[in-house]
C-alpha cells in the first residue's frame, strides 16, 4: 500500500476531534437521531462516516460544527471543549463543504472564497494573495476570479467550494457528500485530485457519504454507522473489507469485497513482469532475436519517446515486407502507474492478450503486468496485512483499547 507510512503515522498522531457520548434527540421525536456516540479522529486523517440513509451520519457531522446542537455529550477540538463556545466563531475555524456546494450566486468567485477571511478581519492584500493561492491549488485559472458561479461548470464549482472551505486554513474540514451531485467521470477525477491535495495539506477531514466505494477510496479510516449513528465498525478500509465486524457491515459492503480491496492498491505497488521491448526503428532481425531470447510470444515496440506503440508476434516479424510501424497490432490496454489494481485488472480483462502496459504520467513505458503478476500481488497482500493488524492492535491497546 502506498500510504502505508501515513496511515501508520495517523495511528500515533494526536486526537484532533473527540466526540464524547454525543446524543441528539430532535423535538417531537421519540427515538434519538444519534445515540451516545463516542469517537476519536486523529490529526491529518480522512475519516469517512458511511451508512444507510437516515442512520444519522449527517446529523453527527453537523454536530461537530454545531449546525445541529447536541442534546447531550461533549465535543472536543484539539483538546478544547467546544460544546458551549460561540458556535459562529467555532464554525469559522472549521471548513465546511456540502453536496449542493452552496456558492453565493451574487458574489464573484474571489468574494466567495474570501467569505471566512473577511469575517476574521484579514486585510485586503492578504485575502487577495490567499485567493490566488487557493485558485492555483484547486486548479482554477486566475482569470475566473471576477466571474460569477453560474458561469462555472459543476466540477469547477465543486473545486471553488473546496477552496472556499480552506480559505482561512482551518485544520479541520467537514465534507457532506461533497462529490455526490457530480457525474461519475468528473467525480472520479475530483476524488483523485482531492486525495493528491490532501497529501500536501494534511487536513483532518470528516467525510460523509452513503457510497461504500467512495468511502473505501477516500478514507484512511471508515466508520460504518447503523441506525442512530451506532458504530458498527471503525477501522481502515483494508480491515473492514477483509474482516467485517458483523453481518451488518458485511451486508453494507455488499458483494465483491475482495475485488474492492484491489482498488486500494495501485499498479505501482506490484512488480511488473519482465517483457521484451524493442524500438520501432530496430531491424526485424533484432526484434526476432529479442523475442527468442525472452521466451515470450510477443514483443512490445516503443516509439522514439519511449511510448508503447505496437505489439508484434513471431509471424508478424517473419513477414519482412511490412515495416515495423504497421506490423502486428496497436498497443492498447495502457494504464498509468497510479491506477488502482482494480482498474488495471479491468483493463487486462478487455485487452487482447490479457496484459496491461504500465506507463508513467507522460505516457512513457514502465512495464507490463499480466494476470500472473497481479495474482502474485494479491497473494502477497495477506501476510502483509496481518503484520499491520498486529501493529494497530498494539496502538489500540496503548490508547486504552477504544
Amino acid at each position, binding site marked *: 500500500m502506498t500510504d502505508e507510512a501515513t496511515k501508520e503515522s495517523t495511528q500515533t498522531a494526536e486526537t484532533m476531534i473527540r466526540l464524547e457520548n454525543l446524543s441528539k434527540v430532535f423535538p417531537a421525536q421519540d427515538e434519538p437521531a444519534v445515540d451516545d456516540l463516542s469517537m476519536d479522529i486523529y490529526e491529518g486523517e480522512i475519516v469517512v462516516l458511511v451508512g444507510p440513509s437516515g442512520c444519522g451520519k449527517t446529523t453527527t457531522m453537523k454536530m461537530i*460544527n454545531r*449546525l445541529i446542537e447536541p442534546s447531550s455529550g461533549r465535543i472536543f477540538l484539539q483538546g478544547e471543549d467546544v460544546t458551549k463556545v460561540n458556535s*459562529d*466563531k*467555532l*464554525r*469559522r*475555524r472549521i471548513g*465546511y463543504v*456540502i*453536496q*449542493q*456546494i*452552496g*456558492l*453565493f*450566486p*451574487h*458574489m*464573484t468567485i474571489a468574494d466567495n472564497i474570501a*467569505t*471566512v477571511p473577511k*469575517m476574521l478581519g484579514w486585510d485586503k492584500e492578504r485575502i487577495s494573495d490567499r485567493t490566488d493561492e487557493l485558485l492555483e491549488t484547486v486548479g482554477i485559472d486566475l482569470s475566473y476570479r471576477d466571474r*460569477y*458561479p*453560474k458561469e462555472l461548470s459543476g466540477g469547477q464549482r465543486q473545486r471553488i*467550494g473546496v477552496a*472556499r*472551505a480552506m480559505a482561512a486554513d482551518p485544520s479541520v474540514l*467537514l465534507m457532506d457528500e461533497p462529490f455526490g451531485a457530480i457525474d461519475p467521470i468528473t467525480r472520479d477525477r475530483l476524488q483523485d485530485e482531492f486525495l493528491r491535495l490532501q497529501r500536501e495539506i494534511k487536513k483532518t477531514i470528516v467525510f460523509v457519504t452513503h457510497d461504500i466505494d467512495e468511502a473505501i477510496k477516500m478514507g484512511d479510516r471508515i466508520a460504518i454507522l447503523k441506525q442512530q449513528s451506532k458504530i458498527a465498525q471503525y477501522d481502515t478500509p483494508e480491515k473492514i473489507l477483509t474482516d467485517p465486524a458483523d453481518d451488518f457491515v458485511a451486508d453494507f459492503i455488499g458483494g465483491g469485497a475482495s475485488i474492492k480491496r484491489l482498488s486500494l492498491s495501485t499498479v505501482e505497488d506490484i512488480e511488473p513482469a519482465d517483457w521484451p521491448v524493442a524500438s520501432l526503428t530496430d531491424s526485424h532481425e533484432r526484434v526476432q532475436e529479442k523475442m527468442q531470447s525472452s521466451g515470450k510470444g510477443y514483443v512490445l515496440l516503443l516509439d522514439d519517446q519511449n511510448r508503447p506503440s505496437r505489439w508484434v508476434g513471431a509471424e508478424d516479424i517473419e513477414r519482412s515486407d511490412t515495416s515495423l510501424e504497421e506490423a502486428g497490432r496497436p498497443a492498447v490496454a495502457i494504464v498509468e502507474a497510479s491506477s488502482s489494481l482494480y482498474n488495471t485488472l479491468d483493463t487486462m480483462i478487455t485487452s487482447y492478450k490479457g496484459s496491461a502496459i504500465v506507463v508513467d504520467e507522460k505516457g512513457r513505458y514502465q512495464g507490463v503486468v499480466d494476470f500472473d503478476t497481479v495474482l502474485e500481488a494479491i497473494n502477497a497482500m495477506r501476510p502483509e496485512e496481518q503484520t499491520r493488524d498486529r501493529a494497530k492492535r498494539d496502538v489500540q491497546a496503548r490508547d486504552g483499547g477504544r
Partner: protein
Amino acid sequence: MTSQTKISTDPQGTARLLRYLAMPIFLGLACLALYLYVSSQKLDSIEQRSLNPSAIIEQTGRLIELAGISTLIVVVLAVTTGILLTRPYTRRVTPFVIGLANIGQAVPSIGLLALFALTWGFGFWPAIVALVAYSFLSILRNTMVGLQQVDRSTIEAARGMGMTKLAVLFRIELPLAVPIILAGIRTALIINVGTATLVTFIGAGGLGEMINNAIRLDRTVVLITASGLTAILALFIDWLASVAEDILRPRGL
C-alpha cells in the same frame, strides 16, 4: 399593470439603450400631442382655470406626492413584515398576517377609501393610509416569496462557514431576494399611482380632482388632458421602476 414585463438580459448595448429610450421618447411625443391638442382648442373660463401650467403642475405634483409617500411607507412596512414573517419563530402568525393583507387588497379600492375616510376623516393622510393598506400585500408577498426561494443550501453553507443569522439575512438572503422584492415594489407603485387618482373622493386632491371636475362640468378638453397626463405619469413611473430593477438586480443572478 406591467410588473410581468421581464426584461431579457440583452448583451448588445445599442439594443439595451433603445429599449431604455423608447418609452421616454414615446411619452414625450404623447405630451407634445396633448399640448398641441389643447392649444388648438378655444378654452372657456372654466377650462382656463384648470388648464394652466401652475394648476396642472400642482395637481400632478400632488399625485406624485401621494403615490411616492405611500409607496415609501409601504416598502418599509411590508419588507420588514416580510422579513419577520419568514423567520422560523413567526411561523404560527404568518397565515393571519397574510389573510389580513389579503383583505386590504380584496376590498375594491374605492370602498377601502370610503372606509378609511369614515374612520379617520377626509384629507391627505387618510388617503395615504388607504393607499398603504391597498398595496401592502403585493410587496409583502413578493418579499416573502423572494426570501423563501433563496436556496436552502446557500444559507446552510453561509451558516456553516460561521456567518451570524443577521449577516446571512443582509448579505445572502436579502440580496438574492432583491429582484423579486423590486418586482413587488414596482407593482405597488403602479397600484398607488392608479388608486391615487381616486383619493379625490376623500378630498386629497391630485389629478383625480381634475378628472372628477371635468366629468361633473362636462369639459371634454380638461378630461382628456387630465386623464392623458395620468396615463403618461403612470407609464413614466413604471418605466423608472423597470430601469431601477435592471440597475439594482445583483450581478451574477
